[in-house]
């Protein structure tokens, strides 16, 4: 689906993508391979969304949060397994990480079980349950203890003996070293801590005993080392190194046989991550299984979640929107009445279904689109080209027209408001006619009069300000004014039948604290009969 940066920002697609972003690397990789649903994908989109809605009802929301947190912490086994396939040597940290992967899957599966409030209807086995890797767990088991890993003796037939030999040699080394250290203490008065120690020449500058070697000599001191000679120690060390490498090779070969199971598990985790992100979204915002309809974009009680989220952060309530769009429609209504929100909601719910997300609405009937375009205002690309607002709008409008099809939604917010009103109105009418001729879905918000009737398209309007519902307002308290306007505004989108579009601009200006004398003067000018 084609959506440019300006549109993505205005219809909340950027917000939506962040809200449903997978939490782990597997999910991100999984999502990268999935394109948004488009025309012809109705069955697949329906299946995914229906699955999400059903699971959102079945799963406990707080447990879903826990499972997602656990997903974020799952280590990535793929590079390790890939190395086993080409025979690369693995280290003990690699085996440890594979063990952590097995443990993380177990934790996820337990988390899933805790989240499921009721068993999946009609299924003996829940195929959404995270996978567990019993085979890999068994392979690593001899080295696992309290979540860690050690290359245990059981991994190699010669390990136990080699380790015993080295331990014996080390004991001989320590004993011999302590014997030399005792002689050094007696001779030099210095306790040789560690492998190397310092003796000042002012303390002792004579010949060194056979079992003490100079590592570094300066005019004033010598760095010395105890020359502990235990030939069997070097041999034991070499033998153990060989046995340990052999054991690691054997273990890596066994792990390689589990590679396909690991790969399958990571794929399942990716799909689970995507699914849980959508479930969490639905549990937060609600959602419905839409009917796919190429001829209508209609929804009831839809929530433009990015706006609702922002309002909630400020302690305000969001009013859901219902709207039915067939072909092209003009949307009029008062300032602050939610025209722009209605446009954004139309784009948002269409974007939701394209991404396999249940649209947050009571019900919806939507097309799967090829493109969504927002017109109105300019974006960074236009600003970078130093275009004026008007020029930017025209350039974007032409681009939208050129690529528009019956599977395009064009949402237009006060097109041509930055030019003269007569020419702007004429342009908007002509543009609406052109959109109608191309058969696109389009919703045009405007304050110009009689656009719909002239262009021959549907006319919708925001019901508007219920003047009688307005209580007294302290003009200096903007928050109180906004709350009062919000309470008095009827945000319903209703069918309009001709007439001029009232903007309630003067009443709102007064409520928002503009000086009364200015508002009164504007009122008298507005109500003057037009001069011939």
């Amino acid at each position: 689906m084609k959506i440019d940066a300006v549109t993505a920002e205005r219809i909340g697609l950027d917000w939506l993508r962040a809200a449903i972003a997978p939490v782990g690397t597997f999910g991100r990789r999984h999502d990268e391979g999935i394109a948004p649903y488009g025309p012809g994908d109705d069955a697949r989109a329906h299946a995914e969304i229906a699955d999400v809605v059903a699971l959102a009802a079945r799963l406990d929301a707080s447990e879903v949060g826990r499972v997602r947190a656990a997903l974020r912490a799952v280590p990535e086994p793929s590079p390790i397994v890939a190395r086993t396939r080409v025979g690369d040597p693995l280290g003990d940290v690699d085996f440890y990480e594979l063990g952590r992967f097995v443990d993380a899957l177990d934790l996820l599966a337990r988390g899933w079980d805790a989240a499921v409030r009721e068993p999946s209807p009609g299924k003996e086995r829940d195929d959404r349950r995270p996978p567990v890797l019993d085979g890999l767990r068994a392979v690593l088991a001899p080295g696992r203890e309290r979540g860690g890993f050690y290359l245990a003796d059981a991994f190699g037939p010669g390990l136990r003996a080699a380790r015993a030999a080295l331990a014996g040699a080390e004991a001989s080394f320590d004993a011999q070293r302590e014997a030399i250290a005792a002689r050094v203490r007696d001779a030099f008065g210095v306790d040789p801590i560690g492998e190397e120690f310092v003796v000042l020449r002012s303390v002792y500058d004579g010949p060194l005993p056979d079992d003490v070697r100079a590592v570094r000599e300066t005019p004033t001191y010598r760095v010395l080392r105890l020359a502990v000679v235990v030939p069997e120690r070097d041999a034991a060390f070499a033998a153990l190194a060989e046995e340990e490498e052999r054991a690691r090779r054997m273990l890596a070969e066994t792990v390689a046989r589990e590679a396909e199971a690991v790969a399958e598990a990571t794929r399942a985790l990716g799909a689970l991550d995507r699914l849980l992100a959508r479930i969490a979204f639905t549990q937060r915002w609600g959602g419905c299984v839409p009917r796919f309809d190429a001829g209508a974009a209609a929804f009831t009680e839809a929530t433009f979640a990015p706006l609702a989220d922002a309002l909630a952060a400020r302690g305000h309530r969001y009013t859901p929107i219902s709207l039915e769009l067939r072909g092209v429609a003009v949307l009029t209504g008062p300032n602050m009445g939610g025209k722009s929100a209605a446009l954004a909601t139309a784009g948002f719910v269409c974007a939701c279904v394209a991404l396999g997300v249940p649209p947050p609405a009571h019900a919806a009937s939507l097309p799967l689109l090829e493109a969504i375009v927002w017109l109105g205002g300019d974006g960074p690309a236009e600003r970078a080209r130093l275009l004026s607002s008007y020029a930017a709008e025209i350039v974007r409008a032409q681009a939208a027209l050129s690529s528009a099809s019956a599977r395009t939604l064009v949402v237009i917010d006060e097109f041509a408001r930055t030019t003269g009103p007569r020419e702007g109105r004429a342009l908007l009418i002509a543009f609406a006619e052109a959109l109608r001729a191309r058969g696109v879905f389009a919703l045009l918000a405007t304050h110009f009069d009689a656009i719909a009737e002239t262009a021959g398209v549907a006319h919708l309007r925001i019901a508007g300000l219920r003047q009688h519902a307005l209580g007294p307002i302290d003009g200096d308290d903007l928050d109180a004014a906004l709350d009062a306007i919000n309470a008095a505004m009827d945000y319903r989108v209703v069918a309009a039948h001709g007439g001029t579009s009232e903007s309630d601009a003067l009443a709102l200006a007064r409520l928002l604290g503009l000086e009364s004398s200015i508002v009164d003067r504007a009122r008298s000018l507005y109500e003057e009969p037009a001069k011939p």
Partner: protein
Amino acid sequence: MPRSSSTTSAPEELYALAIGTARSVIVVGTAKNAGKTTTFNALRAVAKRRGTAIGVTSIGRDGEPADALDAEPKPRVRLAPGTIVALPAGLIPRSPGLAILATGEPSALGTTVFARVVLPTTCEIAGPPTARAMRATIDTLRALCSGPVLVDGAIDRVAPLAGGDDAVIVATGGASGATVARVAAVAADTVARLTLPGRDPRHERERVVRISGALDARDAEALLADAAGATVVVDDPTRIAVRGALFAKLRATVDLRCERPLRVVACTTSPVGRDASLAPRALVDAVARATGLPTFDVVADLRSESGAA
């Protein structure tokens, strides 16, 4: 060199002093080759003699055969069985294998790995690069290890000390100066910074200046000009980025304090310099007098007989 008449060696006395103060001990230095790793190894040797399992890591990179900067030979780090070590994955010895317990913060040499030594092994140790990651590493070591945690510090990387309750040992020596007096002065400057007292509301001056972040030379000059007599508060002593005379003048002019004091418990001395060596006994006593802290020479088995020892 005569051995001390005390029945307890200097390293053992230092170990008891540090471990009696905190679960973790960090050795920092006044200069490169000031004897940090020698002190660190002396503490490890005492733990080994006592049969105490310890946790170890390094703020810098230690245990490599030669110093990465000047090719001077460095003390090796030989770890005893039972030791819990934090080191980057890239420095884990292939053999004898370690028991991997956990992984932690990333570093240039790979993820920090916490491992238990099963058979004696000699290896390089390094910690993660940031102070925050280093603190997390120390905390994890404390959680994994029942015994004390020893951290080999680094010159001028004192930031990881902040926010911890570690015992701090300051290693100094001939690498810091050519004379006993100079070494003692440098040690005193370092210790004075690291032992900055905490806030005391009962004795706070009328004007209190709060410095967020580092207190650098520019801040110091501004305070000297405008805040004489005031109480100046920084987060912790590691935020003091001024040295020497400027720091001394600042302390004399303002009531310099911190929110979270550190616990500096002792100094160690190394008489060995690059071109000359200092008198070990004189150096131990001079540093103890200058810093007011118990001071030890863990190689020559000396402890201070004056000052705070």
